[in-house]
Protein backbone atom coordinates (compact mmCIF):
# COMPACT_ATOMS: atom_id res chain seq x y z
CA UNK A 1 0.00 0.00 0.00
CA UNK A 2 2.92 2.35 0.46
CA UNK A 3 3.94 1.67 -3.09
CA UNK A 4 3.17 5.16 -4.22
CA UNK A 5 5.00 6.73 -1.35
CA UNK A 6 8.18 4.82 -1.90
CA UNK A 7 8.33 5.33 -5.63
CA UNK A 8 10.65 7.86 -7.08
CA UNK A 9 8.71 10.50 -8.80
CA UNK A 10 10.20 12.96 -11.14
CA UNK A 11 9.89 16.47 -9.76
CA UNK A 12 8.73 19.12 -12.14
CA UNK A 13 7.99 16.65 -14.90
CA UNK A 14 6.55 18.94 -17.48
CA UNK A 15 2.89 19.62 -17.36
CA UNK A 16 2.49 21.44 -20.60
CA UNK A 17 2.24 25.15 -20.91
CA UNK A 18 1.18 27.44 -18.13
CA UNK A 19 -1.41 29.76 -19.48
CA UNK A 20 -3.12 32.47 -17.56
CA UNK A 21 -6.42 30.72 -17.00
CA UNK A 22 -4.78 27.69 -15.41
CA UNK A 23 -2.91 29.82 -12.92
CA UNK A 24 -4.26 30.75 -9.54
CA UNK A 25 -4.53 34.40 -8.61
CA UNK A 26 -1.57 35.83 -6.72
CA UNK A 27 -3.43 36.08 -3.41
CA UNK A 28 -4.51 32.43 -3.71
CA UNK A 29 -0.93 31.37 -4.41
CA UNK A 30 0.36 33.32 -1.45
CA UNK A 31 -2.31 32.08 0.94
CA UNK A 32 -1.96 28.43 -0.01
CA UNK A 33 1.84 28.56 0.05
CA UNK A 34 1.81 30.19 3.46
CA UNK A 35 -0.67 27.68 4.87
CA UNK A 36 1.28 24.72 3.44
CA UNK A 37 4.65 25.99 4.61
CA UNK A 38 3.33 26.78 8.10
CA UNK A 39 1.86 23.29 8.36
CA UNK A 40 5.13 21.68 7.25
CA UNK A 41 7.09 23.94 9.56
CA UNK A 42 5.03 23.03 12.62
CA UNK A 43 4.63 19.34 11.96
CA UNK A 44 7.85 18.37 10.20
CA UNK A 45 10.69 20.88 10.44
CA UNK A 46 10.15 21.76 14.10
CA UNK A 47 10.42 18.14 15.37
CA UNK A 48 13.57 17.62 13.29
CA UNK A 49 15.16 20.78 14.66
CA UNK A 50 14.12 19.86 18.19
CA UNK A 51 16.07 16.59 18.03
CA UNK A 52 19.36 18.40 17.43
CA UNK A 53 18.58 21.34 19.73
CA UNK A 54 17.71 19.07 22.64
CA UNK A 55 20.73 16.86 21.97
CA UNK A 56 23.08 19.83 22.15
CA UNK A 57 21.28 21.60 25.00
CA UNK A 58 23.77 20.52 27.65
CA UNK A 59 26.80 21.14 25.48
CA UNK A 60 28.79 19.44 22.77
CA UNK A 61 30.83 17.54 25.36
CA UNK A 62 27.87 15.64 26.79
CA UNK A 63 26.52 15.12 23.27
CA UNK A 64 29.58 13.16 22.19
CA UNK A 65 29.95 11.53 25.59
CA UNK A 66 26.46 10.05 25.16
CA UNK A 67 27.49 8.59 21.81
CA UNK A 68 30.66 6.85 23.03
CA UNK A 69 29.03 5.50 26.18
CA UNK A 70 29.50 1.69 26.32
CA UNK A 71 25.76 0.92 26.09
CA UNK A 72 25.32 3.39 23.23
CA UNK A 73 28.21 1.82 21.33
CA UNK A 74 26.74 -1.65 21.88
CA UNK A 75 23.39 -0.39 20.57
CA UNK A 76 25.04 1.16 17.49
CA UNK A 77 26.89 -2.09 16.84
CA UNK A 78 23.72 -4.18 17.10
CA UNK A 79 21.84 -1.79 14.81
CA UNK A 80 24.61 -2.01 12.20
CA UNK A 81 24.72 -5.81 12.48
CA UNK A 82 20.94 -6.00 12.00
CA UNK A 83 21.05 -3.79 8.92
CA UNK A 84 24.04 -5.66 7.46
CA UNK A 85 22.05 -8.90 7.55
CA UNK A 86 18.50 -7.66 6.89
CA UNK A 87 19.24 -5.36 3.94
CA UNK A 88 21.22 -7.80 1.73
CA UNK A 89 18.70 -10.61 2.28
CA UNK A 90 15.86 -8.34 1.19
CA UNK A 91 17.91 -7.11 -1.77
CA UNK A 92 18.43 -10.67 -3.03
CA UNK A 93 14.72 -11.33 -2.51
CA UNK A 94 13.69 -8.06 -4.15
CA UNK A 95 15.77 -8.71 -7.26
CA UNK A 96 14.55 -12.32 -7.56
CA UNK A 97 10.92 -11.27 -7.06
CA UNK A 98 11.16 -8.42 -9.56
CA UNK A 99 12.86 -10.70 -12.09
CA UNK A 100 10.17 -13.39 -12.08
CA UNK A 101 7.29 -10.91 -11.84
CA UNK A 102 8.39 -8.54 -14.61
CA UNK A 103 10.15 -10.85 -17.07
CA UNK A 104 7.65 -13.70 -17.12
CA UNK A 105 3.92 -14.17 -16.97
CA UNK A 106 2.44 -16.91 -14.87
CA UNK A 107 -0.85 -17.64 -13.11
CA UNK A 108 -1.19 -16.13 -9.64
CA UNK A 109 1.16 -13.24 -10.38
CA UNK A 110 -1.13 -10.54 -9.03
CA UNK A 111 -1.66 -12.57 -5.84
CA UNK A 112 2.11 -12.78 -5.41
CA UNK A 113 2.45 -9.00 -5.87
CA UNK A 114 -0.25 -8.41 -3.23
CA UNK A 115 1.38 -10.83 -0.79
CA UNK A 116 4.71 -9.01 -1.11
CA UNK A 117 2.94 -5.86 0.11
CA UNK A 118 1.49 -7.65 3.11
CA UNK A 119 4.09 -6.54 5.72
CA UNK A 120 3.11 -2.91 4.99
CA UNK A 121 -0.38 -3.70 6.26
CA UNK A 122 0.80 -5.34 9.47
CA UNK A 123 1.33 -3.20 12.57
CA UNK A 124 5.00 -3.31 13.70
CA UNK A 125 3.85 -4.59 17.08
CA UNK A 126 2.06 -7.54 15.46
CA UNK A 127 5.16 -8.18 13.32
CA UNK A 128 7.15 -8.59 16.51
CA UNK A 129 4.40 -10.62 18.15
CA UNK A 130 4.29 -13.31 15.47
CA UNK A 131 7.94 -14.14 16.17
CA UNK A 132 7.20 -14.33 19.90
CA UNK A 133 4.39 -16.79 19.08
CA UNK A 134 6.81 -18.87 17.02
CA UNK A 135 9.97 -18.73 19.08
CA UNK A 136 8.95 -17.54 22.56
CA UNK A 137 9.10 -19.71 25.67
CA UNK A 138 5.33 -20.30 25.44
CA UNK A 139 5.56 -20.47 21.66
CA UNK A 140 6.16 -23.34 19.29
CA UNK A 141 9.91 -23.43 19.84
CA UNK A 142 9.49 -23.35 23.62
CA UNK A 143 6.96 -26.17 23.50
CA UNK A 144 9.36 -28.18 21.36
CA UNK A 145 12.26 -27.66 23.74
CA UNK A 146 10.19 -28.57 26.81
CA UNK A 147 8.30 -31.52 25.33
CA UNK A 148 8.93 -35.04 26.64
CA UNK A 149 8.86 -37.04 23.45
CA UNK A 150 9.50 -35.12 20.26
CA UNK A 151 10.45 -35.59 16.65
CA UNK A 152 14.22 -35.47 16.16
CA UNK A 153 15.32 -35.81 19.83
CA UNK A 154 18.91 -35.09 18.74
CA UNK A 155 17.81 -31.69 17.43
CA UNK A 156 16.10 -30.93 20.75
CA UNK A 157 19.24 -31.96 22.64
CA UNK A 158 21.44 -29.90 20.36
CA UNK A 159 19.24 -26.78 20.63
CA UNK A 160 19.17 -27.06 24.42
CA UNK A 161 22.90 -27.62 24.51
CA UNK A 162 23.48 -24.54 22.33
CA UNK A 163 21.19 -22.51 24.60
CA UNK A 164 19.40 -21.60 21.39
CA UNK A 165 17.38 -18.43 21.76
CA UNK A 166 15.58 -16.31 19.21
CA UNK A 167 13.36 -14.08 21.29
CA UNK A 168 15.11 -11.62 23.61
CA UNK A 169 18.22 -12.23 21.51
CA UNK A 170 19.82 -11.00 18.30
CA UNK A 171 18.21 -13.53 15.88
CA UNK A 172 14.72 -12.33 16.84
CA UNK A 173 15.67 -8.71 16.27
CA UNK A 174 17.07 -9.55 12.85
CA UNK A 175 14.04 -11.65 11.88
CA UNK A 176 11.57 -8.93 12.91
CA UNK A 177 13.60 -6.34 10.98
CA UNK A 178 13.66 -8.51 7.85
CA UNK A 179 9.87 -8.87 8.09
CA UNK A 180 9.31 -5.11 8.46
CA UNK A 181 11.66 -4.13 5.60
CA UNK A 182 10.59 -7.05 3.39
CA UNK A 183 8.74 -5.17 0.59
CA UNK A 184 10.99 -2.12 0.17
CA UNK A 185 13.43 -3.29 -2.54
CA UNK A 186 10.87 -5.38 -4.43
CA UNK A 187 8.32 -2.52 -4.46
CA UNK A 188 10.95 -0.21 -5.89
CA UNK A 189 12.17 -2.59 -8.61
CA UNK A 190 8.89 -4.08 -9.87
CA UNK A 191 7.38 -0.92 -11.45
CA UNK A 192 10.80 0.14 -12.76
CA UNK A 193 11.52 -3.18 -14.48
CA UNK A 194 7.94 -3.38 -15.71
CA UNK A 195 8.39 -0.03 -17.43
CA UNK A 196 11.67 -1.09 -18.99
CA UNK A 197 10.20 -4.23 -20.54
CA UNK A 198 12.19 -7.19 -21.79
CA UNK A 199 13.50 -6.03 -25.18
CA UNK A 200 17.09 -5.50 -24.09
CA UNK A 201 17.21 -8.87 -22.34
CA UNK A 202 15.83 -10.58 -25.45
CA UNK A 203 18.50 -8.87 -27.53
CA UNK A 204 21.17 -10.13 -25.12
CA UNK A 205 19.82 -13.70 -25.37
CA UNK A 206 19.86 -13.46 -29.16
CA UNK A 207 23.48 -12.39 -29.01
CA UNK A 208 24.30 -15.47 -26.93
CA UNK A 209 24.52 -14.13 -23.37
CA UNK A 210 23.76 -16.49 -20.51
CA UNK A 211 21.53 -15.71 -17.54
CA UNK A 212 24.14 -14.14 -15.27
CA UNK A 213 25.64 -12.13 -18.11
CA UNK A 214 22.19 -10.74 -18.95
CA UNK A 215 21.59 -9.79 -15.35
CA UNK A 216 24.96 -8.21 -14.61
CA UNK A 217 25.53 -6.47 -17.94
CA UNK A 218 22.05 -5.57 -19.17
CA UNK A 219 19.47 -5.55 -16.36
CA UNK A 220 21.57 -4.31 -13.46
CA UNK A 221 22.95 -1.20 -15.22
CA UNK A 222 19.34 -0.31 -16.13
CA UNK A 223 17.96 -0.66 -12.63
CA UNK A 224 20.94 0.46 -10.57
CA UNK A 225 19.47 3.76 -9.37
CA UNK A 226 16.13 2.24 -8.48
CA UNK A 227 17.92 -0.57 -6.69
CA UNK A 228 20.15 1.90 -4.87
CA UNK A 229 17.12 3.88 -3.76
CA UNK A 230 15.40 0.71 -2.58
CA UNK A 231 18.50 -0.18 -0.53
CA UNK A 232 18.62 3.32 1.00
CA UNK A 233 14.95 3.13 2.06
CA UNK A 234 15.27 -0.44 3.31
CA UNK A 235 18.35 0.51 5.32
CA UNK A 236 16.70 3.58 6.86
CA UNK A 237 13.77 1.51 8.03
CA UNK A 238 15.98 -1.37 9.21
CA UNK A 239 18.07 0.92 11.40
CA UNK A 240 15.11 2.93 12.68
CA UNK A 241 12.56 0.18 13.34
CA UNK A 242 11.13 0.48 16.82
CA UNK A 243 7.80 -1.28 17.40
CA UNK A 244 8.62 -4.74 16.06
CA UNK A 245 12.10 -4.80 17.55
CA UNK A 246 10.81 -3.56 20.88
CA UNK A 247 8.53 -6.62 21.20
CA UNK A 248 11.23 -9.21 20.50
CA UNK A 249 14.21 -7.54 22.15
CA UNK A 250 13.59 -7.78 25.88
CA UNK A 251 15.53 -4.53 26.33
CA UNK A 252 18.69 -6.00 27.79
CA UNK A 253 21.08 -3.09 28.04
CA UNK A 254 24.31 -3.48 26.10
CA UNK A 255 23.06 -6.78 24.65
CA UNK A 256 19.73 -6.61 22.85
CA UNK A 257 19.25 -2.87 22.59
CA UNK A 258 19.22 -1.30 19.14
CA UNK A 259 19.64 2.45 18.76
CA UNK A 260 15.91 3.31 18.79
CA UNK A 261 15.46 1.14 21.91
CA UNK A 262 18.42 2.79 23.55
CA UNK A 263 16.81 6.17 22.85
CA UNK A 264 13.61 4.95 24.51
CA UNK A 265 15.41 3.73 27.64
CA UNK A 266 17.43 6.92 28.03
CA UNK A 267 14.29 9.01 27.53
CA UNK A 268 12.23 7.04 30.04
CA UNK A 269 15.05 7.42 32.58
CA UNK A 270 14.94 11.19 32.09
CA UNK A 271 18.40 11.33 30.45
CA UNK A 272 16.87 13.66 27.88
CA UNK A 273 20.07 15.11 26.45
CA UNK A 274 21.63 11.68 26.02
CA UNK A 275 18.43 10.34 24.47
CA UNK A 276 18.34 13.19 21.96
CA UNK A 277 22.07 12.83 21.25
CA UNK A 278 21.58 9.21 20.15
CA UNK A 279 18.36 10.29 18.39
CA UNK A 280 20.37 12.89 16.43
CA UNK A 281 22.40 10.08 14.88
CA UNK A 282 19.17 8.48 13.69
CA UNK A 283 17.83 11.84 12.50
CA UNK A 284 21.07 12.33 10.58
CA UNK A 285 20.48 8.98 8.92
CA UNK A 286 17.00 10.18 7.92
CA UNK A 287 18.44 13.39 6.46
CA UNK A 288 21.07 11.47 4.48
CA UNK A 289 18.28 9.22 3.17
CA UNK A 290 16.24 12.23 2.03
CA UNK A 291 19.27 13.89 0.41
CA UNK A 292 20.13 10.71 -1.49
CA UNK A 293 16.51 10.45 -2.61
CA UNK A 294 16.59 14.02 -3.95
CA UNK A 295 19.89 13.40 -5.73
CA UNK A 296 18.55 10.26 -7.42
CA UNK A 297 15.35 12.06 -8.44
CA UNK A 298 17.40 14.89 -9.83
CA UNK A 299 19.48 12.44 -11.88
CA UNK A 300 16.34 10.72 -13.12
CA UNK A 301 14.71 13.97 -14.19
CA UNK A 302 17.78 14.90 -16.23
CA UNK A 303 18.15 11.49 -17.82
Amino acid at each position, binding site marked *: MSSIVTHLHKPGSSHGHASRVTQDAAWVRWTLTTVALLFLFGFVLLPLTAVFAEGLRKGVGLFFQSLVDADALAAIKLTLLTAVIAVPSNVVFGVAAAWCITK*FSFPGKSVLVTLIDLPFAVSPVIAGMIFVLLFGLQGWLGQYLNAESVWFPWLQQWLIHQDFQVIYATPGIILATIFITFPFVARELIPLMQAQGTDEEYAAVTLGANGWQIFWRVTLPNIKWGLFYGIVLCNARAMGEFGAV*SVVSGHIRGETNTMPLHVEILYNEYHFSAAFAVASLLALLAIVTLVLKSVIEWRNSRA
Partner: protein
Amino acid sequence: MSTRSSRSILPGFGLSLGFTVAYLSLIVLLPLSAVFIKTSGMTFAEFWQSVSSPLVVSAYKVTFFASFAAALVNSFFGLIVAWMLVRYSFPGKRVVDALVDLPFALPTAVAGIALTTIYGPTGWIGRWLAPHDIQIAYTPLGVFVALTFIGLPFVVRTLQPVIEELEPELEEASASLGASRFQTVFKVIIPQLFPALIAGTAMAFARSLGEYGSVVFIGANLPMKTQIVPHVIIEKLEQYDYKGATAIATVMLVSSFILLLLINLLQKWSRRYHKI
Protein backbone atom coordinates in the same frame (compact mmCIF):
# COMPACT_ATOMS: atom_id res chain seq x y z
CA MET B 1 5.41 -7.99 -23.71
CA SER B 2 6.55 -11.17 -22.08
CA THR B 3 5.32 -14.43 -23.48
CA ARG B 4 4.03 -17.38 -21.49
CA SER B 5 6.56 -18.63 -19.00
CA SER B 6 6.93 -22.01 -20.68
CA ARG B 7 7.93 -20.37 -23.93
CA SER B 8 9.94 -17.42 -22.64
CA ILE B 9 13.51 -17.50 -23.80
CA LEU B 10 14.80 -15.63 -20.75
CA PRO B 11 16.46 -17.85 -18.17
CA GLY B 12 16.01 -17.98 -14.42
CA PHE B 13 12.23 -18.32 -14.12
CA GLY B 14 12.26 -21.40 -11.93
CA LEU B 15 15.10 -20.17 -9.73
CA SER B 16 13.74 -16.68 -9.15
CA LEU B 17 10.12 -17.76 -8.62
CA GLY B 18 11.16 -20.64 -6.38
CA PHE B 19 13.33 -18.41 -4.24
CA THR B 20 10.68 -15.68 -4.08
CA VAL B 21 7.92 -18.03 -2.97
CA ALA B 22 10.16 -19.85 -0.46
CA TYR B 23 11.44 -16.62 1.12
CA LEU B 24 7.96 -15.10 1.18
CA SER B 25 6.56 -18.20 2.88
CA LEU B 26 9.32 -18.45 5.46
CA ILE B 27 9.53 -14.78 6.42
CA VAL B 28 5.94 -13.58 6.00
CA LEU B 29 3.27 -16.23 5.41
CA LEU B 30 4.34 -18.89 7.90
CA PRO B 31 4.92 -16.47 10.80
CA LEU B 32 1.65 -14.62 10.06
CA SER B 33 -0.26 -17.88 9.98
CA ALA B 34 0.82 -18.39 13.60
CA VAL B 35 -1.63 -15.66 14.60
CA PHE B 36 -4.57 -17.37 12.96
CA ILE B 37 -3.56 -20.85 14.14
CA LYS B 38 -3.23 -19.59 17.71
CA THR B 39 -6.61 -17.85 17.45
CA SER B 40 -8.31 -20.93 16.03
CA GLY B 41 -7.28 -22.79 19.19
CA MET B 42 -9.46 -20.47 21.28
CA THR B 43 -13.14 -20.95 21.97
CA PHE B 44 -15.40 -18.19 20.70
CA ALA B 45 -16.25 -17.14 24.26
CA GLU B 46 -12.54 -16.76 25.10
CA PHE B 47 -11.95 -14.82 21.91
CA TRP B 48 -14.91 -12.53 22.44
CA GLN B 49 -13.94 -11.86 26.03
CA SER B 50 -10.42 -10.86 24.96
CA VAL B 51 -11.45 -8.54 22.15
CA SER B 52 -14.38 -6.86 23.90
CA SER B 53 -13.15 -5.99 27.38
CA PRO B 54 -13.76 -2.31 28.24
CA LEU B 55 -10.02 -1.55 28.21
CA VAL B 56 -9.64 -2.94 24.69
CA VAL B 57 -12.79 -1.27 23.40
CA SER B 58 -11.56 2.07 24.70
CA ALA B 59 -8.23 1.45 22.92
CA TYR B 60 -10.09 0.72 19.65
CA LYS B 61 -11.94 3.99 20.05
CA VAL B 62 -8.82 6.06 20.75
CA THR B 63 -6.94 4.45 17.86
CA PHE B 64 -9.84 4.75 15.44
CA PHE B 65 -10.87 8.32 16.19
CA ALA B 66 -7.33 9.72 16.45
CA SER B 67 -6.39 7.99 13.17
CA PHE B 68 -9.53 9.22 11.48
CA ALA B 69 -9.08 12.82 12.63
CA ALA B 70 -5.39 12.76 11.64
CA ALA B 71 -6.23 11.35 8.20
CA LEU B 72 -8.88 14.06 7.67
CA VAL B 73 -6.50 16.86 8.65
CA ASN B 74 -3.87 15.36 6.37
CA SER B 75 -6.29 15.14 3.46
CA PHE B 76 -6.91 18.89 3.77
CA PHE B 77 -3.33 20.09 4.31
CA GLY B 78 -1.86 17.33 2.15
CA LEU B 79 -3.91 18.52 -0.80
CA ILE B 80 -2.66 22.08 -0.32
CA VAL B 81 0.96 20.93 0.07
CA ALA B 82 0.77 18.71 -3.03
CA TRP B 83 -0.88 21.47 -5.06
CA MET B 84 1.79 23.95 -3.98
CA LEU B 85 4.64 21.56 -4.80
CA VAL B 86 3.36 20.84 -8.31
CA ARG B 87 1.85 24.13 -9.42
CA TYR B 88 3.80 26.91 -7.73
CA SER B 89 7.46 27.71 -7.79
CA PHE B 90 9.33 29.34 -4.96
CA PRO B 91 12.88 29.35 -3.66
CA GLY B 92 13.76 26.25 -1.64
CA LYS B 93 11.01 24.17 -3.23
CA ARG B 94 13.33 21.18 -3.64
CA VAL B 95 14.11 21.20 0.09
CA VAL B 96 10.43 21.48 1.02
CA ASP B 97 9.63 18.62 -1.35
CA ALA B 98 12.27 16.45 0.33
CA LEU B 99 11.00 17.41 3.81
CA VAL B 100 7.58 15.90 3.04
CA ASP B 101 9.20 12.46 3.20
CA LEU B 102 10.74 13.08 6.63
CA PRO B 103 7.97 11.29 8.58
CA PHE B 104 8.72 8.30 6.40
CA ALA B 105 12.48 8.38 6.94
CA LEU B 106 12.69 9.49 10.56
CA PRO B 107 12.60 6.55 13.00
CA THR B 108 9.25 6.63 14.79
CA ALA B 109 10.82 6.64 18.27
CA VAL B 110 12.80 9.76 17.38
CA ALA B 111 9.67 11.44 16.04
CA GLY B 112 7.86 10.41 19.23
CA ILE B 113 10.28 11.97 21.69
CA ALA B 114 10.71 15.09 19.52
CA LEU B 115 6.95 15.69 19.29
CA THR B 116 6.53 15.06 23.02
CA THR B 117 9.21 17.63 23.78
CA ILE B 118 7.74 20.26 21.46
CA TYR B 119 4.13 19.80 22.53
CA GLY B 120 4.90 19.17 26.19
CA PRO B 121 3.88 21.86 28.73
CA THR B 122 7.32 23.52 28.53
CA GLY B 123 8.00 22.78 24.84
CA TRP B 124 8.35 25.21 21.94
CA ILE B 125 4.67 24.96 21.05
CA GLY B 126 3.23 23.56 24.29
CA ARG B 127 4.30 26.56 26.37
CA TRP B 128 2.14 28.89 24.23
CA LEU B 129 -0.87 26.62 24.60
CA ALA B 130 -0.52 25.91 28.32
CA PRO B 131 -1.83 29.33 29.46
CA HIS B 132 -4.98 28.70 27.39
CA ASP B 133 -5.50 25.38 29.19
CA ILE B 134 -4.75 23.41 26.05
CA GLN B 135 -2.68 20.35 26.79
CA ILE B 136 -1.50 18.22 23.90
CA ALA B 137 1.12 15.85 25.28
CA TYR B 138 -0.32 12.97 27.34
CA THR B 139 -3.86 13.52 26.00
CA PRO B 140 -5.74 12.03 23.03
CA LEU B 141 -4.84 15.25 21.23
CA GLY B 142 -1.20 14.17 21.42
CA VAL B 143 -2.03 10.83 19.80
CA PHE B 144 -3.72 12.80 17.04
CA VAL B 145 -0.66 15.05 16.56
CA ALA B 146 1.70 12.06 16.26
CA LEU B 147 -0.57 10.33 13.75
CA THR B 148 -0.88 13.51 11.69
CA PHE B 149 2.92 13.64 11.47
CA ILE B 150 3.07 9.97 10.39
CA GLY B 151 0.33 10.19 7.75
CA LEU B 152 1.30 13.36 5.88
CA PRO B 153 3.57 11.84 3.17
CA PHE B 154 0.94 9.27 2.18
CA VAL B 155 -1.56 11.93 1.10
CA VAL B 156 0.98 14.24 -0.56
CA ARG B 157 2.82 11.50 -2.47
CA THR B 158 -0.41 9.94 -3.72
CA LEU B 159 -1.74 13.26 -4.98
CA GLN B 160 1.44 14.69 -6.51
CA PRO B 161 1.68 12.47 -9.61
CA VAL B 162 -2.06 12.85 -10.25
CA ILE B 163 -1.84 16.65 -10.10
CA GLU B 164 1.18 16.53 -12.42
CA GLU B 165 -0.82 14.56 -14.96
CA LEU B 166 -3.86 16.86 -14.91
CA GLU B 167 -4.46 18.10 -18.41
CA PRO B 168 -4.36 21.90 -18.56
CA GLU B 169 -6.67 21.71 -21.57
CA LEU B 170 -9.55 20.78 -19.30
CA GLU B 171 -8.98 23.85 -17.16
CA GLU B 172 -8.66 26.01 -20.25
CA ALA B 173 -11.86 24.58 -21.66
CA SER B 174 -13.62 25.22 -18.40
CA ALA B 175 -12.34 28.81 -18.33
CA SER B 176 -13.23 29.43 -21.95
CA LEU B 177 -16.77 28.24 -21.28
CA GLY B 178 -17.07 31.02 -18.73
CA ALA B 179 -16.33 29.25 -15.46
CA SER B 180 -14.63 31.28 -12.78
CA ARG B 181 -11.37 29.93 -11.39
CA PHE B 182 -13.29 28.95 -8.26
CA GLN B 183 -15.78 26.94 -10.31
CA THR B 184 -12.96 25.34 -12.31
CA VAL B 185 -11.19 24.25 -9.15
CA PHE B 186 -14.25 22.77 -7.46
CA LYS B 187 -16.07 21.36 -10.50
CA VAL B 188 -13.18 20.31 -12.76
CA ILE B 189 -10.00 19.83 -10.75
CA ILE B 190 -11.16 18.44 -7.40
CA PRO B 191 -13.37 15.74 -8.97
CA GLN B 192 -10.36 14.48 -10.90
CA LEU B 193 -8.23 14.44 -7.75
CA PHE B 194 -10.92 12.96 -5.54
CA PRO B 195 -10.14 9.23 -5.98
CA ALA B 196 -6.43 9.78 -5.31
CA LEU B 197 -7.28 12.00 -2.35
CA ILE B 198 -9.44 9.24 -0.84
CA ALA B 199 -6.78 6.60 -1.57
CA GLY B 200 -4.03 8.68 0.06
CA THR B 201 -6.21 9.46 3.05
CA ALA B 202 -7.09 5.79 3.44
CA MET B 203 -3.39 4.87 3.32
CA ALA B 204 -2.59 7.43 6.02
CA PHE B 205 -5.48 6.06 8.06
CA ALA B 206 -4.33 2.44 7.64
CA ARG B 207 -0.79 3.31 8.63
CA SER B 208 -2.05 5.20 11.70
CA LEU B 209 -4.07 2.23 12.97
CA GLY B 210 -0.92 0.19 13.50
CA GLU B 211 1.44 2.99 14.48
CA TYR B 212 3.27 2.51 17.76
CA GLY B 213 6.63 4.27 18.11
CA SER B 214 5.58 7.87 17.67
CA VAL B 215 2.41 7.55 19.75
CA VAL B 216 3.64 5.84 22.92
CA PHE B 217 5.75 8.77 24.05
CA ILE B 218 3.34 11.63 23.38
CA GLY B 219 0.28 9.62 24.44
CA ALA B 220 1.89 8.12 27.55
CA ASN B 221 -0.42 5.05 27.30
CA LEU B 222 -2.93 6.05 29.94
CA PRO B 223 -5.48 3.19 30.07
CA MET B 224 -9.01 4.16 28.99
CA LYS B 225 -7.66 7.55 27.91
CA THR B 226 -4.74 7.51 25.47
CA GLN B 227 -3.83 3.85 25.23
CA ILE B 228 -3.77 2.58 21.65
CA VAL B 229 -4.44 -0.95 20.42
CA PRO B 230 -0.78 -1.85 19.65
CA HIS B 231 0.14 -0.88 23.20
CA VAL B 232 -2.58 -3.16 24.60
CA ILE B 233 -1.01 -6.01 22.63
CA ILE B 234 2.43 -5.23 24.07
CA GLU B 235 1.00 -5.11 27.58
CA LYS B 236 -0.67 -8.52 27.14
CA LEU B 237 2.57 -9.99 25.80
CA GLU B 238 4.47 -8.65 28.79
CA GLN B 239 1.97 -10.42 31.06
CA TYR B 240 2.48 -13.62 28.99
CA ASP B 241 -1.20 -13.44 27.99
CA TYR B 242 -0.40 -14.68 24.48
CA LYS B 243 -3.99 -15.69 23.78
CA GLY B 244 -5.37 -12.27 24.62
CA ALA B 245 -2.67 -10.54 22.56
CA THR B 246 -3.30 -12.85 19.60
CA ALA B 247 -7.04 -12.33 19.67
CA ILE B 248 -6.66 -8.54 19.54
CA ALA B 249 -4.00 -8.88 16.84
CA THR B 250 -6.44 -10.95 14.77
CA VAL B 251 -9.00 -8.16 14.92
CA MET B 252 -6.34 -5.64 13.84
CA LEU B 253 -4.96 -7.84 11.07
CA VAL B 254 -8.37 -8.57 9.59
CA SER B 255 -9.35 -4.90 9.63
CA SER B 256 -6.09 -3.80 8.01
CA PHE B 257 -6.35 -6.50 5.32
CA ILE B 258 -9.84 -5.27 4.48
CA LEU B 259 -8.51 -1.71 4.35
CA LEU B 260 -5.64 -2.82 2.09
CA LEU B 261 -8.16 -4.41 -0.26
CA LEU B 262 -10.26 -1.22 -0.32
CA ILE B 263 -7.16 0.89 -0.98
CA ASN B 264 -6.15 -1.31 -3.91
CA LEU B 265 -9.62 -0.92 -5.40
CA LEU B 266 -9.49 2.84 -4.79
CA GLN B 267 -6.16 3.09 -6.54
CA LYS B 268 -7.48 1.25 -9.57
CA TRP B 269 -10.39 3.69 -9.57
CA SER B 270 -8.07 6.68 -9.12
CA ARG B 271 -6.08 5.69 -12.18
CA ARG B 272 -9.11 5.23 -14.38
CA TYR B 273 -8.38 8.54 -16.08
CA HIS B 274 -4.74 7.68 -16.62
CA LYS B 275 -4.51 4.56 -18.67
CA ILE B 276 -0.88 4.31 -19.65
